[in-house]
């Protein structure tokens, strides 16, 4: 899933300080799963905004709406009738949400309520970590099913570097050295030969480096 975290409330209050009618829009996709942008969080943010503004002696009207997904135009359409009632919109979907809203409703002021972090998963409840860098050409099968592009701090394809220590990355004791895991796993599986094989420079043309990406599935296009 796409993992996000809430923006500090202070930052959100500053962003919308000029507005007194605000719509908070959530998303039932990834951000609901990672407890940051679902209907529950929409309510919490709406209440927090009201309390904070009341404390400052400023009135505010906050509407709440949670879309099935903010990354599909037909769902984004659902708020067409109500969005013009508000001076500003706070989207608490991933970074795709505020952009789909901005594109669909060019006359509205749209603000992001969360910071989008990465593509990853939940290690356990409340702990998420990155797994995919979206390079566009998956190579995890060469590395014991683990991705050094997303998970090695230097994206080394021929690691590990000299900074690997006690299974941790040189950048932080909090970060596992994925190459340590890859090497141990491959050696245990008797696949040292594959590990010793030189991996040539990767083509980044399918990654963000090749420019903003777009995908057309002919079989699905009407």
């Amino acid at each position: 899933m796409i993992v996000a975290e809430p923006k500090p409330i202070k930052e959100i209050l500053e962003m919308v300080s000029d507005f007194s009618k605000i719509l908070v829009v959530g998303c039932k996709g990834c951000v609901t799963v990672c407890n940051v942008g679902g209907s529950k969080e929409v309510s919490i943010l709406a209440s927090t905004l009201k309390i904070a503004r009341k404390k400052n002696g400023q009135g505010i009207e906050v509407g709440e709406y949670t879309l099935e997904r903010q990354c599909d135009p037909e769902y984004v359409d659902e708020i067409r009738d109500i969005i013009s009632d508000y001076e500003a919109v706070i989207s608490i979907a991933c970074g795709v949400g505020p952009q789909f809203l901005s594109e669909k409703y060019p006359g509205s002021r749209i603000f992001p309520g969360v910071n989008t972090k990465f593509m990853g998963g939940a290690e356990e409840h409340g702990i998420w970590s990155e797994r995919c860098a979206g390079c566009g050409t998956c190579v995890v099968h060469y590395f014991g099913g683990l991705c050094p592009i997303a998970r090695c701090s230097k994206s080394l394809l021929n690691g590990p570097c000299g900074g690997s220590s006690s299974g941790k990355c040189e950048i932080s004791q909090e970060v596992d050295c994925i190459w340590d895991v890859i090497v141990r796993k491959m050696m245990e599986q008797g696949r040292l030969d594959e590990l010793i094989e030189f991996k040539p420079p990767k083509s980044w043309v399918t990654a963000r480096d090749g420019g903003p990406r777009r995908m057309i599935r002919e079989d699905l296009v009407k």
Partner: protein
Amino acid sequence: MSEYKSGSTLEKVLKAGHFAFTGECGPPQGANVEHLREKAGHLKGFVDAVNVTDNQTAVVRMSSWAASVILLQEGLEPNFQMVCRDRNRLAIQSDILGVYVMGIRNMLCLSGDHQKFGNHPDAKNVFDIDSMQLIHTVKTMRDEGKFLNGQEVDVPPKLFIGAASNPFAEPFDFRVYRLAKKIAAGADFVQTQCIYNMDRFREFMKKAVDMGLHEKCYILAGVTPMKSVGMALYMSKQVPGMEVPDSLIKRLRGAGKGKVAEEGIRYALEQIEEFKEMEGVAGVHLMAIEWEHRVPEIAERAGVLPRPTF
């Protein structure tokens, strides 16, 4: 045609079977060229080549190629270091050509310390290619006269290709294979991380010799004399992939006030003596960090003078 790959002094020294002795010099954090000339001056005549670090520990310094050219002007042979952190493959290949035409003949290929350590932690890193691929890039440009895209290089750069090896990083069992991989990728010589744990290094070298790696590549053992107990503790605790045995820290502590640096040098000299006899070790890379003025004395006491000339 020359029988040499690059014709650098370092290559000639190693090929002739001499025990190589290389030094290191970090460029200044500014345009203080006089300071650089002064530091480098201490090394002249005492080492075969001088490693010129490339924004080491991710701290911005005068570019390694420019500092390497200054060393050439001073009559020293640079070992130009290049890291993959700050350049993509376009910049890498153009810098390889650039340094060659400026007269640089040795190049050490590194991944580079992560910028998180340095003085610009907000920077975006590159890591388009890694150190292994960098070694291979230089070799392909030199020996096949081809860029990474397969296009022909109009006059290939003839560089003596260096790589680093850290026998002390984990996973330890894989380190010798990683060295083998670097040699297969094109490394002509290897300089190791600073060695303090001799037992572990002996074990590493035995494996390397058993695999015949010393016959395919010149292995230079990394030596950094400890200046103080504080430095030893810092190296032990703060520098990733560095292993400092407690026995060495104890020995330095026992040296007594004002004598720790001398004890550090003595330990380094004992190491060098052993490396001279150790199978597979072709020389020593002395990284006397901000201690360049002590290099002549260390070289003298290590019995590696005079350096061969060609």
